[in-house]
C-alpha cells in the first residue's frame, strides 16, 4: 500500500523522474489558471456577463465574505493569499473522484509546503501592518516569560496544519483501499462520498485557520476603531 503519491512516477523526462505529486500539482495549477484566463478573457464593460463569469464572481465574493466575517476588514492581499490556498486545496481534493488521479494534498510534501507558506506569510503580514518592532513585541505579550511558548506555538501551528490536511486526505484513500478488499461493491462508494465532504471541509478549515493566524498577527487597531471602519466600509 502506498502512503504517499511521492513514490509513483508519472513520467520520465530527460532522465529526471517526475513523480505524480509534482505532475498533479502542475496539472491543478494549469487547470485553475487556464480556466480563470479563459473566463476573464473578454472582461470588458460592453460585454454582458455570461454564466461562467458569474460563477467565478460567486466564488470570489463568497471567499471575500468569509474573510470579512472573520477579520472585519477589507484586505485584498489576504483574499489573494488564502483564496488561492483554498481554491488549490479544494480542487485537489475534489479531483480525487477522477480515477487514477492521486491528489497532491495526500502527500506530506505538498501540505508541508502549504503550511510553510502560511508560516512565512504570518510574519510578513504582521510586519506589514505593525512594523518590525510592533510585530516582535507581540511575542512578548502578555509577559516576557511567554516568549518561548509563543515561538513554540508558532511552529506547532505549522506542524498541525500540515499533518491535519495530509492525514485527512491520506486516510480517505487508505480507508477506501482497505474497504475495497473487505466489501468491494457498495461500501467504498459511501466512504468516497464521505472523503469528498472531508476534503471540502479540510480545505475550508485550512483557509480559515490561515486567515485567523494572519488576522491575529495583524489585528492592531483597537476595538471601537475597527467597528467604525467596518461600518464605513459596509
Amino acid at each position, binding site marked *: *500500500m502506498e*502512503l504517499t503519491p511521492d513514490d509513483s512516477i508519472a513520467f520520465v523526462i530527460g532522465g529526471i523522474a517526475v513523480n505524480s505529486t509534482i505532475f498533479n500539482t502542475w496539472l491543478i495549477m494549469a487547470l485553475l489558471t487556464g480556466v480563470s484566463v479563459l473566463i476573464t478573457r473578454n472582461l470588458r464593460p460592453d460585454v454582458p456577463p455570461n454564466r461562467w463569469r458569474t460563477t467565478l464572481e460567486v466564488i470570489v465574493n463568497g471567499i471575500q465574505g468569509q474573510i470579512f*466575517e472573520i477579520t472585519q476588514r477589507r484586505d485584498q492581499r489576504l483574499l489573494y493569499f488564502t483564496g488561492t490556498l483554498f481554491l488549490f486545496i479544494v480542487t485537489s481534493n475534489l479531483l480525487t473522484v477522477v480515477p487514477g488521479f492521486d491528489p497532491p494534498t495526500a502527500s506530506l510534501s505538498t501540505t508541508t509546503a502549504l503550511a510553510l507558506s502560511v508560516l512565512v506569510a504570518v510574519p510578513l503580514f504582521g510586519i506589514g501592518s505593525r512594523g518590525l518592532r510592533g510585530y516582535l513585541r507581540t511575542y512578548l505579550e502578555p509577559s516576557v516569560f511567554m516568549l518561548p511558548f509563543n515561538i513554540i506555538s508558532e511552529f506547532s501551528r505549522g506542524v*498541525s496544519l500540515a*499533518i*491535519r490536511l*495530509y*492525514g*485527512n486526505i*491520506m*486516510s480517505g484513500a*487508505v480507508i477506501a483501499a482497505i474497504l475495497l478488499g473487505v466489501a468491494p461493491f457498495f461500501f467504498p462508494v459511501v466512504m468516497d462520498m464521505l472523503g469528498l465532504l472531508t476534503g471540502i*471541509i*479540510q480545505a*475550508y*478549515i485550512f483557509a*480559515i*485557520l490561515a486567515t485567523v493566524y494572519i488576522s491575529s498577527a495583524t489585528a492592531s487597531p483597537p476595538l471601537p476603531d475597527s467597528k467604525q471602519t467596518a461600518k464605513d466600509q459596509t
Partner: protein
Amino acid sequence: MTDLSIIAVISIFTAGLTVSFGALGPALGEGRAAAAALNAIAQQPDASSTLSRTLFVSLAMIESTAIYCFVVAMILLFANPFWNAAVEAAAQSTGG
C-alpha cells in the same frame, strides 16, 4: 521469537492501541462540542451560520488529534523504520 517477529507484534499491537485511544478522546470531545452547538442553535436560530462555522472549525481542530494518532498508526503499520532496519540487517547477515 526472532527480532523481526517481535518488532511486528509490538508494532501491530501499538497501532491498534494508538487508534483505539486516539479515537476515544476526540469522539467524546466532538460529541460534547456538537451537543453544545445544537443547544445554542436551538436557543438562537438566527446565529446558526456563525455557530455552524465555528462548530466546523472546532470539530476539525478536535479531530486533528485523532488524525495524528491515525498517522502514527499508519507509519507503524506501513512505513515502520525499525522494521526496515531489521529487514536490512537480516539481509546483510544472510548475504555476508
